């Protein structure tokens, strides 16, 4: 083995790795010397938007993250809430937008793989998946290829690992023509006392690598995750990672057995930025240092350098901290499930991350400089102009209700999604009691898995990005409320939120204005609905060239139904029942789907959102379900009352007649 000679980093390399001029100089100051190539790689990965949230953190602080049910808020791999009766739910939503645009099947598949690992790394067994997908216009040349690939990728991965996909949404809008959005949500369950933290501690403890072997794939995926697309995205060397759901299932079962035996101190999945982010984040949480020898990392390619090992984003890998006496159990379980496992380092008390290759030093960096002290920016932000009021003076086709209904039901954003969710296994686990076509939220019962439990969990993922573009503050309140309504329509009480903030370039003050106001809106709604934000993700630079996408703060909300047998549904079954409209609010066609479908326009000013009134209406519907009073309930969203009633009838053996003027 030739001895490794670590090259030096440079200003040009820093620029190529996505670091700004100031950030390069900051690295020089913090180290007091020129960084090595590996050190520069560590800084560029950990200081990327994806890992550091440097442009968004100041706004994320507005979110309410505490509550008597919250066991773990933002800061860990996923958030956790107490469901009562000795059970906790762990969940999160995350984006895989840029990789899915380059290679839709593997991009989307590895998105599912990554979010699942974020859940089981917390000690929770994943039991449900959702996804939120946004594509360009159907007639855009790339859309059919991207749509088919993303749906195939999500299905192939989730189905193989055996986690049901029980809800989701698909939108088409010109603003995503050059930059699709693939947001994946996962939820798992465990005992409240058994939530595992991603921490390394105890000098002398071991750092153990578990999972697939490492290759050169996906190097610099983290910085790419927030890099905008110029036209030169066809790289010569595939930076795309290939997912292996079979290996993920083995890794999942191996981890579950390790948690049951309690043979580890801490664990984190290797996501964006692979070994570099998992090692430094675990060390930062424990206030310790780590020493890693990349020569000991199980590799699937020969001649890999420390830089490549630390930055590689090969999939299906975990990093474990354990006491020496726990190693034997870890190796036994890894062998049983045929998963690679190797001690690659140890915990030290120097608070420094030291990377060696054999005995050649490749990096020696204070952990805090990579993580807690990463730069934070107060980006300039300007409130976006609010649109003019809508005037419908000369609107002839308002009277053509029949024509409008057919146009709406046939439009890309309102037609049946069966072609999509039919490719997802919705039933594996035998807990699913409301599939995507049966109610406004996906619902799983907990009894079969935890005998004696009567409750069920409802979950939904929603975002009307057109509303948020028109009015980021009121629009994002409306997003949280749509989730709350969808849960209430199934009889569930909303408990907590996870959010995926998909925005354009933070260097554009208007985009930052949208982000700042959207966070204000989400924070206000989360507080008023008593649904704290317990986890989330930010994806910036979503644009092609200099056109940013519509601001898309996707929200995932989880709710609880006390008695699973009283779960609500969408389709009425009995005839001769009254139809009620719940909720207040002045009817308005501003930014409506009708306007977009019939005239291609996004116009009008949103009426202010009355959260308290809407919450009261939702709570009333929930209580009526609890009292077995309702036969069906459905949320009025895009397409308004007309489409909502049509969707109920399409799913039902009965019809609906409306004869009261509203």
């Amino acid at each position, binding site marked *: 083995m030739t001895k490794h000679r670590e090259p030096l980093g440079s200003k040009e390399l820093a620029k190529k790795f996505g670091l700004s001029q100031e950030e390069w100089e900051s690295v020089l100051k913090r180290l007091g010397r020129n960084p090595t190539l590996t050190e520069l790689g560590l800084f560029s990965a950990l200081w990327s938007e994806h890992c550091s949230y440097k442009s968004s953190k100041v706004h994320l602080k507005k979110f309410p993250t505490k509550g008597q049910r919250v066991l773990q808020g933002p800061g860990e791999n996923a958030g956790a809430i107490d469901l009562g009766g000795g059970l906790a739910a762990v969940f999160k939503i995350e984006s895989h937008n840029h990789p899915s645009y380059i290679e839709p099947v593997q991009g989307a598949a590895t998105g599912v793989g990554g979010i699942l690992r974020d859940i089981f790394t917390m000690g929770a067994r994943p039991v449900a998946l959702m996804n939120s997908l946004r594509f360009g216009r159907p007639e855009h040349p790339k859309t059919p290829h991207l749509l088919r690939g993303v749906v*195939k990728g999500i*299905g*192939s991965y989730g*189905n*193989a*690992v*055996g986690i049901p996909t029980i809800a989701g949404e698909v939108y088409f809008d010109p603003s995503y023509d050059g930059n699709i959005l693939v947001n994946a949500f996962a939820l798992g369950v465990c005992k409240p006392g058994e939530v595992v933290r991603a921490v390394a501690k105890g000098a002398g403890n071991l750092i153990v690598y578990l999972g697939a072997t490492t290759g050169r794939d996906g190097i610099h995926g983290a910085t790419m995750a927030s890099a905008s697309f110029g036209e030169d995205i066809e790289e010569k060397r595939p930076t795309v990672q290939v997912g*292996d*759901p*079979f*290996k993920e*299932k*083995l890794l999942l079962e191996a981890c579950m057995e390790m948690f049951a035996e309690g043979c580890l101190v801490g664990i984190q999945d290797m996501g964006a930025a692979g070994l570099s982010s998992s090692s430094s984040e675990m060390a930062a949480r424990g206030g310790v240092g780590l020493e890693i020898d990349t020569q000991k990392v199980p590799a699937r390619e020969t001649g890999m350098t420390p830089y490549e090992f630390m930055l590689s984003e090969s999939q299906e890998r975990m990093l474990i901290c354990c006491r020496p006496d726990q190693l034997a159990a870890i190796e036994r379980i890894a062998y049983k*499930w*045929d998963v690679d496992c190797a001690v690659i380092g140890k915990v030290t008390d120097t608070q420094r991350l030291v990377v060696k290759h054999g005995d050649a030093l490749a990096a020696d960096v204070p952990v805090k400089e990579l993580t807690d002290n990463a730069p934070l920016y107060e980006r300039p932000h300007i409130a976006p102009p609010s649109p003019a009021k809508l005037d419908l003076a000369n609107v002839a086709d308002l009277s053509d209700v029949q024509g409008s209904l057919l146009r709406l039901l046939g439009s890309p954003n309102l037609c049946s999604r069966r072609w999509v*969710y*039919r*490719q*997802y*296994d*919705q*039933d*594996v*686990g*035998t807990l*699913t*009691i409301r599939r995507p076509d049966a109610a406004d939220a996906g619902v799983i*019962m907990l009894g*079969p898995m935890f005998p004696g439990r009567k409750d069920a969990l409802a979950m939904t993922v929603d975002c009307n990005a057109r509303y948020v573009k028109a009015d980021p503050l009121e629009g994002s309140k409306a997003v949280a409320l749509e989730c709350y309504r969808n849960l209430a329509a199934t009889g569930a009480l909303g408990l907590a939120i996870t959010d995926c903030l998909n925005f354009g370039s933070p260097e554009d003050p208007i985009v930052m204005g949208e982000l700042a106001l959207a966070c204000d809106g989400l924070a206000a709604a989360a507080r008023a609905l008593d649904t704290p934000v317990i986890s989330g993700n930010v994806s910036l630079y979503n644009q092609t060239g200099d056109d940013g996408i519509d601001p898309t703060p996707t929200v995932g909300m989880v709710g609880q139904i006390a008695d*699973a*047998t009283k779960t609500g549904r969408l389709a009425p079954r009995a005839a001769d029942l009254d139809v009620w409209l719940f909720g207040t609010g002045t009817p308005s066609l501003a930014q409506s789907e009708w306007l977009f479908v019939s005239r291609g326009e996004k116009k009008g000013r949103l009426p202010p959102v009355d959260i308290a009134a809407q919450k009261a209406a939702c709570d009333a519907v929930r209580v009526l379900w609890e009292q077995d009073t309702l036969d069906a309930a459905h949320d009025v969203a895009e397409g308004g009352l007309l489409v909502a009633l049509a969707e109920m009838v399409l799913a039902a053996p009965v019809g609906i007649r409306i004869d009261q003027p509203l």
Partner: protein
Amino acid sequence: MKVTVITFPGSNCDRDVQRAFLGLGASLIIGWHEDTKLEATDAVILPGGFSYGDYLRTGAMAARAHIMPEVKAFADRGGAVLGICNGFQILCEAGMLEGALLRNDSLSFICEDVKIDVEQADTKWTRGLAGKTLRLPIAHGDGNFYADEATLDRLEAEKRVVFRYEARNPNGSKRRIAGICNANRNVVGLMPHPERASDVLLGSTDGLQILGAILEGGAR
């Protein structure tokens, strides 16, 4: 009544099948693909899932697992064996059932409910279900049953087509075949998932009629 459910690497319906049988009052033995001995049992179940990731061919690698010779011997002795979805694919790859499950003709994974007719009531798994139509969920990408015409004719003649898709053929299977049995009528494979129709809250309990058939009659 002892029932052994075998877990292969990549099986993901093993826990669901275990729960369904426990609900029926059976006592459960958890089998592992690397065991080389089968504990004394009354029935062996090969559950659904993506054993070995369905790589190369669905069921190809699991059919060569160390436990399989034991399962074959158990079947040769007349023991009741049920292969569900991936389990059916494994039984075909292991030569314990005839034919093969190819890629769905739509080329995509399908998850929905289907209706199947029970055409034979004299196998270990369909006792007392003569002429019934069951509503069960399917969830597979390779459920397209294939055999050459001679084999198909023989299966029909020997009354070994046990389940047939009632009307709509969801995946292109020859002659709408959803499940078959072996000559000795003790090994049955089917693509739909009976364990997913085992609770009124799941929308149907039809699946319990298949899983339960083995219990009431007892595996003589």
